[in-house]
C-alpha cells in the first residue's frame, strides 16, 4: 500500500517565520513523493486548527502525517489524539522538532537553519514512508494481590498503605513471630520463585514445609537488614553482643541491659566483611538517650568512625553528649579490638586524644546493619539487580526511589541499604502507596513500539536475555528467543546488541533509523 502523507508546517505562532522561509519548506514538501497534502497552520496545539488537519486527512484519505513543530513531548498528546479521530494510528505520525532543534539555536544563521529544516523534513518523510501502524494492548490484572516480602516495620508500613487503594496485602514473614498488619500474614514463609511480569506475577512461595503458587499483581521487597547475621571479629569475640534493635526491644520490654553499655558502629572495624554503615545513627542516638533517661546510672559509650547525625538527630547528638554519654571516635589505624580471652573489655585508640582507651562493658551493641543474606535468593527468584554490598538495587534514584527496574516490583527499607526504623517506615509507606496505585489501575498496558524476534535468525546465544533489565526476552519452547511484550519497555537494548541481528524494534527498525540518517547526511549543511 502506497503511503499517503499529510505534511503540516506549524508556524509556532510567529516564531518559525522569523527565521525560516515557510513557503520554501512547503514547496519541498509538496514536491516530495507520497505527499498529498501540505498545510501551514499558526499553532498545531490549537484545537480548532487540529480540527482542520483532521478534516483534511478524512477528505483525502491520508494514512500518515509529518508534523514540523516543537518538542514531541509537549505537543504529541493533543496532536495524536486528533489524528486518532481521523483514523490515523499514533505510530504513523512523525513529529519533527524544528523549534528547539533548528529555529531557537541558530538565530544568527538563517541560511543554515533553512538547510537544516529542509533536511529534517526530507528525513522525516523518508522515515514516514517506512512507518507501520502498531497496536497497544492491555491485559487485566488477574488479582489485586500485593505480596510484601518481610513483615518488619517497613513491610507493615507498606501493607498499611497498599490496602488503602483496595489491594489485598499478603505478607511473607520468614520467622514465626506473631504480628499485626492489614492483610494476610504467612509465617515461616519466603519467596522462592517468580514467573510472569508486573500486573500478573505467578509467585512460588515456601510457607513452612509446603511450596505454594500465588498470583500477585505487585511485589514489595521489605526484607530488612541482616540483623541476625552479625559477622566480624568483635561479634565473634563477644557471644552475647547484640544488634541495636535488640537493645531497643529490651528497653521497650522494660528490661535493664547490663551496664556499662558500649555501642560500636560495626563488628568489623577493619572492614573486610562489612563496610561501615552510618544510616542507623539517628536510631542509635535516640536509643542511647532513651536508655540514659530511664537508667541514668548506666554508663554509655558510643564508639564510631563517622557520626552522621543528620537533620534533627543533631539535637539527639547534643542531648546525648549533655547527658554524659561518652563518644569515642576512631580511625582504621586505631580500630577497636576485643581479646576473646577477655571478652568484657574493648580497647580503642581515641582519634582526637591519641590515647588508647580500655572500656569494661556489660553489654556490647552494634549500630550497623549488614545486608540481609536472604536478598540474594529473592533477587534471583525475581531476577532483579543487587548492589555490591548485598542490598537490592533500585531503579533511578530521582524517578523511582522505592522501585526496582522491574515494573511491579517495589523495594523499601534496609533491603536497599541500612537505615533507621523511622526512615524504613517512610519508605515502606511510599512503596506501599506506589504498589497500591499500580494495582488500582486493574490492567496493564503494553505493546506498540516493542521488540520482536525473527526466530529463524536467532542463535539462542542468551545475550538478549542477559542484557535486558526487564526480563522481557526469554528462550521459548522452540529453543529460540522470544520477547514477553508485557515486560518490554521498548528501549531496544537487545536489538542493538543481538549478534545475529534477529531482533527488531518496531518503530525504530534498522531500516527506519538508517534511512533517516542517510537522508539527513544527503542534505545540505
Amino acid at each position, binding site marked *: 500500500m502506497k503511503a499517503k502523507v499529510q505534511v503540516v508546517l506549524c508556524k509556532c505562532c510567529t516564531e518559525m517565520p522569523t527565521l525560516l522561509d515557510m513557503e520554501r519548506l512547503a514547496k519541498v514538501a509538496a514536491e516530495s513523493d507520497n505527499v498529498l497534502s501540505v498545510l501551514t497552520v499558526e499553532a498545531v496545539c490549537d484545537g480548532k486548527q487540529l480540527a482542520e488537519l483532521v478534516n483534511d486527512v478524512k477528505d483525502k484519505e491520508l494514512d500518515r502525517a509529518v508534523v514540523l513543530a516543537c518538542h514531541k513531548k509537549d505537543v504529541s498528546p493533543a496532536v495524536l489524539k486528533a489524528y486518532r479521530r481521523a483514523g490515523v494510528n499514533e505510530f504513523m505520525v512523525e513529529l519533527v522538532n524544528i523549534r528547539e532543534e533548528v529555529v531557537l539555536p541558530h538565530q544568527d544563521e538563517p541560511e543554515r537553519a533553512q538547510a537544516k529544516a529542509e533536511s529534517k523534513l526530507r528525513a522525516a518523510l523518508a522515515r514516514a514512508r517506512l512507518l507501520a501502524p502498531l497496536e497497544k494492548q492491555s491485559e487485566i490484572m488477574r488479582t489485586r494481590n500485593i505480596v510484601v516480602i518481610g513483615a518488619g516495620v517497613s513491610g507493615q508500613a507498606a501493607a498499611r498503605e497498599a490496602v488503602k487503594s483496595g489491594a489485598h496485602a499478603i505478607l511473607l514473614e520468614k520467622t514465626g513471630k506473631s504480628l499485626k498488619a492489614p492483610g494476610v500474614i504467612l509465617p515461616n514463609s519466603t519467596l522462592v520463585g517468580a514467573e510472569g511480569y508486573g500486573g500478573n506475577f505467578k509467585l512460588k512461595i515456601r510457607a513452612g514445609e509446603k511450596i505454594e503458587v500465588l498470583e500477585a499483581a505487585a511485589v514489595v521487597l521489605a526484607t530488612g537488614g541482616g540483623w541476625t547475621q552479625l559477622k566480624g571479629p568483635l561479634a565473634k569475640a563477644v557471644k552475647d553482643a547484640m544488634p541495636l534493635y535488640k537493645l531497643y526491644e529490651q528497653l521497650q520490654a522494660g528490661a535493664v541491659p547490663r551496664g556499662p553499655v558500649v555501642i560500636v558502629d560495626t563488628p568489623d572495624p577493619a572492614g573486610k566483611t562489612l563496610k561501615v554503615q552510618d544510616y542507623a545513627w539517628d536510631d542509635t542516638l535516640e536509643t542511647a538517650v532513651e536508655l540514659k533517661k530511664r537508667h541514668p546510672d548506666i554508663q554509655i559509650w558510643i564508639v564510631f568512625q563517622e557520626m552522621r547525625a543528620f537533620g534533627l538527630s543533631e539535637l539527639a547528638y547534643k542531648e546525648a553528649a549533655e547527658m554524659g554519654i561518652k563518644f569515642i571516635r576512631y580511625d582504621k589505624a586505631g580500630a577497636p579490638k576485643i581479646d576473646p580471652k577477655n571478652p568484657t573489655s574493648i580497647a580503642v585508640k581515641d582519634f582526637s586524644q591519641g590515647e588508647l582507651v580500655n572500656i569494661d562493658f556489660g553489654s556490647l551493641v552494634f549500630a550497623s546493619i549488614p545486608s540481609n543474606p536472604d536478598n540474594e535468593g529473592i533477587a534471583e527468584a525475581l531476577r532483579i539487580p543487587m548492589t555490591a554490598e548485598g542490598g537490592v538495587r533500585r531503579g533511578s534514584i530521582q524517578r523511582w526511589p522505592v522501585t526496582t527496574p522491574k515494573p511491579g516490583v517495589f523495594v523499601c527499607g534496609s533491603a536497599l541499604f541500612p537505615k533507621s526504623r523511622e526512615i524504613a517506615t517512610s519508605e515502606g509507606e511510599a512503596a506501599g502507596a506506589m504498589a497500591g496505585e499500580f494495582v488500582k489501575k486493574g490492567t496493564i498496558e503494553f505493546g506498540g513500539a516493542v521488540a520482536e524476534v525473527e526466530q529463524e535468525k536467532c*542463535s*539462542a546465544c542468551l545475550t538478549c536475555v542477559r542484557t535486558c533489565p526487564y526480563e522481557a526476552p526469554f528462550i521459548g519452547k522452540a529453543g529460540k528467543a522470544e520477547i514477553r511484550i508485557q515486560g518490554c519497555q521498548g528501549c531496544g537494548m537487545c536489538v542493538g546488541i543481538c549478534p*545475529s541481528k534477529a531482533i527488531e524494534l518496531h518503530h525504530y527498525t534498522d531500516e527506519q533509523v538508517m534511512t533517516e540518517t542517510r537522508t539527513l547526511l544527503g542534505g545540505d549543511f
Partner: protein
Amino acid sequence: MIVAKRKPLTEIAEMLAPYKKVTVVGCRSCVAICLAGGEKEVKMLVSALKLKAKKEGRKQQFDGFVVERQCEKEWVTEVEEKVLDSDVTLSMACSLGAQTIGDMYPKHLTFPGLNTGIFGVPEEQGVWSEKCVGCGNCIIHTTGGICPIARCAKSMLNGPCGGSANRKCEVNLDVDCAWAAIYDRLKIQNRLDLIEQVTPAKDWSTSHAGGRRTYVREDARLTPHQKKGKEAVQ
C-alpha cells in the same frame, strides 16, 4: 562450544588488500554466540573495511552474508553464487567453516577472518574460558568433574605440583590451581580417596597428538544405495 576471536582488522585488511571484490561470509552458530562472526560482526566488518578503502582512496568492493552453519555443505551452497562471484572470500566462521568453503570451491580463495580458538564455557556474558582440550578420553568422573588436562597448566594427572601455592598456579597468580579445585570438589563429594589413587600416565593417542582424528558412527552412514547425486557415484 567453539569460541573464536576476530583477527585484528589490520591483519584482515592486509590479507585482502590485493583483491578487488571481497565476499565476507559469517555463521549463525558458535561464532555468533561468542560474538565474533555473526551477522552483526559481518556487517560491521564490511563497513569498517569500506571506510578504510574510502580513506585510502582505494576501490575495493565488500559484501557480507551469513549462513546458518558454515561447516555444513548444504548451507554453504546457499551462498555459492556470491562466493564464486568474488575475488576472495573472507570467512567469519571458525576455521571449520573457512575450510568447508575452501574444500567446496578449491580453485577459489577463502581466507580466515577469525582465529579459532578454544572449547570455551561462557563464565559470564563476554567471558569464555577453556575447559576442554579435546583429549579424547575424558576422566573427569575421577576428578570431581574438573578437567586437569585443560585447567592445569602442566596437565597433571596426579597433581597438584610443588609450585601450587594458596590455591593458585605458579604460572600465573591470577590462575586458580586446578588440583586445588579438584581437591575441594572431591572433598564435598566425600570422594577424597580418589586423590590417593595414582592415575597411570596418559595414553595421548586419543588426542590430537596421535594425529588427525575422525569420529565415525557406522550405523549413521548412508549406504551407497542411499546416497544421492554425485556422492552416490564416488
